[in-house]
């Protein structure tokens, strides 16, 4: 269906240095396969995907050598519009791809462009509405939809032209985890029910790798692209979901790709680990347990009620947050996580009850004082970024925080090395934007750092970097609170978990106590090894290494 024949691609701005993005790619994807493309941000994944429908090089410019043939059509002779009936392309941000205003119009637009007769269009719009579960939304304006629904409409709008190949470039990167799951479930149905050939670039491997028929690894820096069945590529892929990492640690072959595969083979490992104690998370100043109690809290809430006029979102939250803690705030959308963050950062006044951050009521502080006590990295970090270069953005932050010039840029360079300071903030990757927003917040050295859904759009490398950064912040004695759905991040970084449901605090305790037994919040490793209290592959690896040492002695 799709064939890459000795394909190399060099963009026009790299012609002088002759540094190709892709070098000698040979790839053949048969009909009906779900092909997963993995690689770091900036490795050339997007280039590979865009070469399938000719956007590269017809739209982007550049030099393509070799041949890309899709359904018998060579992209040299067929421009993207000549492939529109064969390849459907869905990008990261659904809103930026929409042309019309309502769901039905958007579904019909592609067919209108191809000049299909009206009765065919009517029929296909109906079919697609049902296929993607959009029937109730048919007359709704696109901007009123949730992000997950928008992305489903974007997929629907390319499906109406009946393509044989669906190419999705990180369709879930701009979505929160629940919306992402909705989109991935839809996609999997398309592969199985319609037999579409799907090429998908995705960071959330733990959700899709078990369904993939083939994995293409794009390592970047011009190193060769590899492809093969998931189990063999995952064997030494630098990017892997926790279940695969655990499989590698334990030495399972073939590698398990799903929790089910792993759980069925986990009995011996559980026996081996039985007598061992899972490492406790340091909860304050690197020290576990009692010392934390002694430290005075950074933030304190007592019977906190907050929300909108007459509709309380938070219904009496009492908790205290101590220095050196990384606290994960979990719960479904609309449960009050964001409201709690907003109240902590003073954007919302409490209706009743007490809230103290660093000993003061945040809503009464002026912004210039507030930023020394608490800072919030919003869900869309670009909301904080207004200047047109990174350097100007950092200078502004220096002035706002009244710190010496260069402080913010220094923090940013420590968090995200190798980003040119003259770059436009909107040209940064999602992870770099997050660290820039974080650097701006940290310039004023607040005691309490809040992050709202920080892993949205981050690849594995950026996520690892974030985990390190958050650990460092906790070691410096700050308190970090993150509202997130990302259970793997919580397992890696959090020392304590608060679960909020319907505005009330339903659980509060050390991470392992809360997540191990929970079907919703357990990370993959915990699901495989429960009832034992292991959270990450690294913990298991360390423990196993000790066991072998002991037996060798």
């Amino acid at each position: 269906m799709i064939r890459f024949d000795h394909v190399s691609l060099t963009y026009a701005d790299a012609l002088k240095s002759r540094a190709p993005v892709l070098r000698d790619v040979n790839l053949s994807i048969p009909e009906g396969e779900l092909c997963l493309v993995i690689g770091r941000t900036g490795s050339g994944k997007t280039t590979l995907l865009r070469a399938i429908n000719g956007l590269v090089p017809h739209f982007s410019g550049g030099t393509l050598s070799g041949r890309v043939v899709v359904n018998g059509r060579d992209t040299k002779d067929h421009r993207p519009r000549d492939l529109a009936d064969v390849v459907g392309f869905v990008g990261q941000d659904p809103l930026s791809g929409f042309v019309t205003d309502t769901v039905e119009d958007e579904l019909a637009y592609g067919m209108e462009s191809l000049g299909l007769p009206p009765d065919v269009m009517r029929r296909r719009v109906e079919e697609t509405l049902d296929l993607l579960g959009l029937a109730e939304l048919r007359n709704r304006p696109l901007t009123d939809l949730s992000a997950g629904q928008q992305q489903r409409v974007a997929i629907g709008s390319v499906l109406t032209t009946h393509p044989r190949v669906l190419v999705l470039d990180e369709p879930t990167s701009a979505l929160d985890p629940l919306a992402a799951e909705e989109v991935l479930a839809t996609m999997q149905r398309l592969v199985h029910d319609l037999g579409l050939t799907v090429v998908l670039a995705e960071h959330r491997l733990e959700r899709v790798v078990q369904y993939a028929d083939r994995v293409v690894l794009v390592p970047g820096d011009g190193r060769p692209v590899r492809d093969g069945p998931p189990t063999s590529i995952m064997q030494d892929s630098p990017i892997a979901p926790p279940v695969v990492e655990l499989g590698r640690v334990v030495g399972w072959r073939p590698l398990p790709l799903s929790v089910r595969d792993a759980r069925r083979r986990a009995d011996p490992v559980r026996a081996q680990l039985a007598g061992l104690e899972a490492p406790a998370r340091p909860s304050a100043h690197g020290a576990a347990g009692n010392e934390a109690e002694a430290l005075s809290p950074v933030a304190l809430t007592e019977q906190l009620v907050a929300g909108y006029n007459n509709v309380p979102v938070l219904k009496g939250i009492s908790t205290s947050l101590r220095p050196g803690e990384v606290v994960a705030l979990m719960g479904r959308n609309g449960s009050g996580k964001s409201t709690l963050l907003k109240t902590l950062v003073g954007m919302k006044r409490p209706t009743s009850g007490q809230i103290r951050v660093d000993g003061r009521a945040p809503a009464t502080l002026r912004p210039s004082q507030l930023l020394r006590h608490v800072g919030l990295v919003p869900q869309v970090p670009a909301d904080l970024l207004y200047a047109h270069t990174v350097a100007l953005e950092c200078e502004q932050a220096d002035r706002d925080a009244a710190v010496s010039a260069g402080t913010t840029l220094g923090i940013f360079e420590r968090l995200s090395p190798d980003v040119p300071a003259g770059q436009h903030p909107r040209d940064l990757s999602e992870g770099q934007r997050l660290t820039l927003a974080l650097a701006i917040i940290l310039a004023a050295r607040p005691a309490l750092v809040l992050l709202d859904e920080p892993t949205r759009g981050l690849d594995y490398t950026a996520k690892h970097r974030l985990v390190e950064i958050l650990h460092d912040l906790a070691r410096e004695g700050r308190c970090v609170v993150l509202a997130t759905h990302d259970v793997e991040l919580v397992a890696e970084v959090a020392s304590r978990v608060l679960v909020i449901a319907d505005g009330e605090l339903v659980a509060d305790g050390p991470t392992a106590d809360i997540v191990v037994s929970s079907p919703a919040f357990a990370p993959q490793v915990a699901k495989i090894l429960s009832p034992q209290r292991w959270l990450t592959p690294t913990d298991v690896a360390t423990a196993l290494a000790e066991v072998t040492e002991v037996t060798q002695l």
Partner: protein
Amino acid sequence: MKATHLIPLRGRSSLALGTVSVIGLAAFGWPFLTDPGSALDSSHAGDAPLLFVAILPLLAAIVLAELTSGEMDAKSVAMLGMLSAVGGALRALGPGTAGLEPSFAIIVVGGRVFGRGFGFVLGALTIFSGALITGGVGPWLPFQMMAAGWLGFFAGCLPRATGRMEILWLAGYASISALLFGLVMNLWFWPFASYGPETSFVPGDPFAANLFRYGVFYLTTSLIWDLGRAVISLLVIGLAGSALLRALRRASRRAAFDAPVVFER
């Protein structure tokens, strides 16, 4: 900074643009050019000049078709469509609201960033789409399209400059050309109407006399509106010019307009 030429001017399209511009110049300037006794003389003053009104739309259509044939790819069409839609929508502020005309700034900045061919088409299309939005379609429309086309064309011909100097050039150019636009635009109807002996066109009169009367007409009627337009263009470019330039140049860089597409085997 160097302009990205989205609509390059080559042999045929330059020829079309040149010829039509000369005819357009005649359409605007005939009152001053006619000698007593020529075909456009008093005996025909009622009908022959109307010929210009009739053929100019056709000529405008031809030059737009010639400029945009073949060379434009989807990205350039998108950029042209977006900018002329924004400019056209801003034209809605024009009539009635003291002649506020922020769309001139868009045409000037667009011509500057994407070259003179693009500037010409952008100017003409901005006026056209604005006319459709505001209901301003009439015999004056092709004259306005030509004049705005020239506005965008010459914006693409301004000398190279960066930073403050560039803004200064653009703002100066925009405000002066806003005045000239009014000066030129009055000409399409001036010969046909009567405003009293001191300010009206007298067929067959010497060039200087007609020019003087037109000068009086301009100073006493349209200047105040054109000044408003000049000031607003100056303000828009002075305040938002560098942001606009930056946004368009970033878009131009991201869209890789001038990156060649090469296939090797």
